[in-house]
């Protein structure tokens, strides 16, 4: 039996669940100091005076710094995605020097001998602020009269993209549906909070960070601080989740390193959950004006999108690029004649936004799938029938969409048919009709979402054409050890995904070695020197292919040695079941025997380097396009406004599957996160720019008790763009589920004249929608 496709339990888990872990906060170094940051209580203000004297005199305090102390060396936090030539990129000092622009921005710090003393001394720092007006609403921010976040104004950029003749599509269209949707601001809530340890190390420094991106972080820390790259080592130890929030170069990482350089001692920072809610980059926060033009039979003529995207106060690593990741997805799986997309990035005095699970694609999918349901209601068609009339048929692949992407494969019919069967679609529709007839106080809604996403980020040339600052390749190294065991070095840094397991399965098949004989090394720039790290559902589709290609190279080397050992021509040597055999004879050498022979190097082919290893760097030719059909049944209590998910069916097509158990886990987690956006989560700022949702009492995360039992299944249409046929699954559940849930709620309320409920669809909002108020 091949390893690829087996539901292997993760080899990481025994260690993780028994606490034999190395989280950044667990790291203890001799002489280590602890830093605590004082954060701005003002959304927008000038810093008039800073007095650190009293704090510095407190017991255990080693140093107190304000922004001025770092002004000459802290540089500006990087934005690596200048989406337009005229993009406004404001200076972004890691610690504010003269002006603060969001509540939570670091203004000073205390370095002390323990965490408690550092935290105690914060209140002794005196800062005088001169308040400036907060800028909170994107639409108002773009008016002439608005106060400015930065001197250059509140508009960061406008980015346009069009395909086909959009005016022709809308002019004279029998049906036009226009809607405005609010993508509320979300706070990524990884289980492990952020933490950084920086320490002097030989001629340079080592930075340990709970990061998704040790490689990118190393490059950016070198560029930001001026510390030469070869004097910087970055380690991502065990990392407990990220969802994009640790795809960042943070103020705290830069400052912790600078403090270490200043004091010559190791320094640690670990955020509290409330500090994290304030200052982990936020997600989403877009105002989406969308319109669809269609024929009376539901055939789509065109889709228009006009977005406002809240950048927050500054541009962080990929802040302006996030909405662009959705720019090619507002057409989804549907054929149409024309497409028009515009996005304006807006500065406000709030925490900057950046990538959060799905990054641009959940927003796009939400608006489109909601709009499609509205169109179905408008033309009087079942929402799935409307989709069927418009989607790309399975025999039409590869298909180049109106947005210019070439979808290599897909089978929307198969996924939808399977989902409808598992869901009991017709029966639930009948029950819905019955409840409507009876005027049951508990109404039933059915929500559909036939999503696709682009993942496997990304072909480097495409990223270049979008002005992204780096490539989209991934590196892998595979080496046979003398005893026949295998070490795999991957540039794709795991932070909970199960790379060690999946990579072992790929290597076990490719080299014919046992699963348990493979070790996967990652997350340390001194060990895995090259990499583009983990985000955008790219690990398997890019990093996994690099592993496979490195294995192929190793195998080819081994074949030469095998042929030499068996005195045969390499062409006559075939590889099966972990051994090289001379065709037509019984002679064979296992790959382990060859590994030992290469190590001894006593008798190798002429010119053969005595190393059975190989590197591969894979740059994908195309994105991959997972898709699927999600169906959600929700009971809405019209008396209280409460929604209860009764059943949820997810049929996903993520191509070939390396480990079904890991895929299942990704789907479950993704669904939880997407449902959470629909029903629970929202970062709320008050009218003065204070974040109100600083604890989990106010920022509601669902637990297992709040979620239904998920019914999951898969169809399997292999990707044709990579040799494993894989597509990626890290974000699919999140992207698909949010519109499925809200579509269900609106479907339940449609007889009451409701056609939207703003997310999160709290009981109060549902109740107000039912009672004619603004939802």
């Amino acid at each position: 039996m091949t390893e690829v496709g087996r539901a292997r339990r993760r080899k990481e888990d025994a260690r993780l669940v028994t606490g034999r872990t190395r989280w950044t906060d667990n790291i203890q170094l001799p002489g280590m100091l602890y830093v605590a940051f004082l954060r701005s209580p003002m959304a927008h203000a000038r810093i008039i005076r800073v007095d650190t004297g009293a704090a510095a005199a407190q017991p255990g305090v080693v140093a107190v710094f304000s922004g001025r102390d770092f002004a000459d060396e802290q540089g500006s936090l990087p934005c690596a995605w200048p989406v337009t030539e005229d993009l406004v990129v404001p200076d972004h000092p890691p610690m504010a020097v003269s002006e603060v622009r969001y509540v939570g921005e670091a203004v000073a710090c205390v370095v002390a001998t323990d965490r408690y003393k550092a935290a105690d001394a914060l209140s002794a720092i005196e800062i005088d602020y001169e308040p400036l007006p907060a800028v909170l609403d994107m639409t108002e921010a773009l008016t002439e009269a608005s106060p400015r976040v930065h001197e250059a104004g509140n508009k960061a950029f406008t980015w346009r993209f069009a395909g086909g003749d959009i005016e022709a599509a809308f002019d004279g269209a029998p049906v036009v549906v226009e809607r405005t949707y609010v993508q509320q601001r979300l706070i990524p809530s990884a289980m492990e909070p952020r933490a950084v340890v920086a320490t002097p190390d030989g001629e340079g420094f080592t930075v340990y960070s709970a990061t998704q991106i040790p490689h990118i972080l190393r490059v950016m820390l070198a560029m930001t601080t001026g510390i030469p790259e070869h004097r910087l080592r970055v380690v991502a130890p065990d990392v407990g989740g990220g969802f994009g929030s640790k795809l960042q170069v943070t103020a705290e990482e830069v400052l912790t390193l600078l403090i270490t350089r200043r004091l010559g001692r190791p320094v640690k920072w670990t955020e509290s959950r409330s500090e994290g809610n304030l200052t982990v980059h936020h997600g989403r926060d877009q105002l989406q004006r969308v319109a669809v033009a269609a024929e009376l039979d539901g055939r789509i003529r065109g889709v228009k999108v006009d977005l406002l995207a809240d950048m927050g106060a500054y541009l962080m690593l990929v802040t302006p690029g996030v909405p662009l990741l959705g720019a090619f997805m507002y057409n989804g799986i549907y054929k149409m004649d024309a497409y028009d997309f515009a996005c304006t990035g807006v500065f406000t005095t709030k925490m900057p936004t950046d990538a959060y699970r799905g990054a641009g694609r959940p927003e796009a999918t939400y608006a489109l799938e909601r709009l499609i349901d509205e169109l179905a209601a408008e033309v009087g068609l079942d929402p799935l029938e409307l989709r069927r009339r418009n989607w790309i048929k399975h025999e039409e692949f590869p298909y180049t969409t109106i947005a210019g992407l070439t979808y290599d494969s897909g089978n929307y019919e198969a996924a939808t048919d399977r989902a409808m069967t598992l869901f009991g679609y017709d029966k639930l529709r009948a029950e819905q009709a019955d409840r409507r007839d009876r005027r049951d106080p508990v109404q039933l809604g059915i929500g559909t979402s036939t999503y696709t996403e682009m993942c496997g980020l990304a072909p480097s040339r495409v990223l270049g054409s979008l002005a992204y600052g780096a490539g989209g390749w991934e590196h892998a190294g595979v080496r046979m050890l003398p005893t026949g065991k295998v070490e795999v070095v991957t540039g794709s840094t795991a932070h909970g995904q199960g790379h060690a397991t999946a990579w072992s399965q790929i290597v076990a098949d490719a080299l014919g070695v046992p699963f348990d004989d493979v070790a996967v090394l990652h997350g340390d720039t001194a060990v895995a020197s090259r990499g583009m790290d983990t985000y955008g559902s790219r690990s398997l589709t890019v990093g996994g292919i690099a592993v496979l290609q490195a294995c192929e190279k190793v195998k080819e080397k081994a074949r030469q040695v095998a042929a030499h050992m068996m005195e045969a021509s390499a062409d006559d040597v075939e590889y099966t079941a972990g051994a090289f055999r001379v065709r037509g004879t019984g002679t064979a050498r296992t790959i382990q025997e060859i590994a030992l022979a290469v190590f001894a190097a006593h008798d190798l082919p002429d010119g053969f380097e005595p190393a059975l290893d190989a590197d591969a760097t894979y740059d994908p030719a195309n994105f991959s396009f997972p898709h699927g059909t999600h169906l959600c049944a929700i009971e809405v209590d019209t008396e209280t406004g409460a929604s209860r998910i009764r059943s949820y069916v997810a049929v996903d097509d993520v191509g070939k599957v390396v480990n079904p158990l890991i895929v299942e886990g990704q789907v479950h987690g993704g669904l939880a996160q997407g449902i959470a956006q629909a029903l629970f989560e929202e970062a709320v700022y008050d009218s003065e720019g204070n974040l109100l949702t600083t604890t989990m009492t106010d920022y509601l995360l669902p637990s297992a008790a709040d979620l239904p039992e998920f019914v999951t299944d898969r169809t399997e249409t292999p990707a044709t763009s990579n040799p494993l046929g894989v597509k990626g699954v890290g974000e699919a559940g999140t992207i698909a589920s949010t519109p499925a849930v809200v579509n269900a709620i609106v479907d339940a309320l449609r007889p009451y004249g409701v056609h939207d409920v703003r997310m999160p669809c709290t009981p109060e909002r549902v109740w107000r929608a039912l009672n004619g108020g603004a939802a």
Partner: protein
Amino acid sequence: MIPAAFDYVRPQSVEEACSALADAGDEAKVLAGGQSLLPLLRLRLAYPTALVDVGRLAELQGIRDESDHVFIGSMATHYDVVRSPLINAECPLVAMATATVADPAVRHRGTFGGSLAHADPAGDLPAVALALDCTFVVRSGSGEREIPAADFFVDYLEPALSPEEILLGVRVPKLGPGWGYHYEKFHRTAQSWAIVGVAAAVRRSNGSIEEARIGLTNMASIPVRARAAETALRGVAITPAVPGETNGGADPVRDACGDAAADTSPPADLHAQPDYRRHLARVLTHRAVLTAARA
């Protein structure tokens, strides 16, 4: 957790605890299960100079049958309460509400007395204590006294306890036969506070409600009784007698619950505005009363 510095005292008896509190002055806090106090320390919303840890005092443990009432020691955990056969038999409303408190981890550490002495109107137990007319037994260096539930909750997070007083336990009256109970909790996630909660005890006779006692959670700065609804429910026929039945459009229990939110002053927060809370109080009181009446 990075709280400000504090002294920690673990007395060996209630007497020692009382003198420790008297010595420590106004800024000392009693530490029980820590499920409400520790978050406040962690967020630096409270800066007590000393914590007097009474969590292990044997005198505060235990759930006892004391003829016409059940005595619940203040350090009985929520888990102890939920599992107690005595409570489930004699005052099941306490067990019903306690089972909805937070999550299993909190219920294993959090205590019955600590939760009540915290006097959070959004907590589930204060409304129950109020509805059942419980009696709070407290002690200080100068002796023991009893406080009726109606006088115990003074204001938001403010019980009628002086700084040197410790809650020994609570007497929950046995209401006897003929009563039905229900706690209706409305919240957004399983672990979150009640937006509104309704504790209902209903005495029935011949298909009608003879007496209803209704405590409301999170409808004011303290737990409150829905007195207007209690009065209106007296003598009302329990219809429909079983769920789903129709009664020719008449719905006297619902009508009687129409004033459930009278004399309340519900808070406004991120989860609900006052008008919505009032609406919920009416709907949930109807549901709680009807469920209790049918129980």
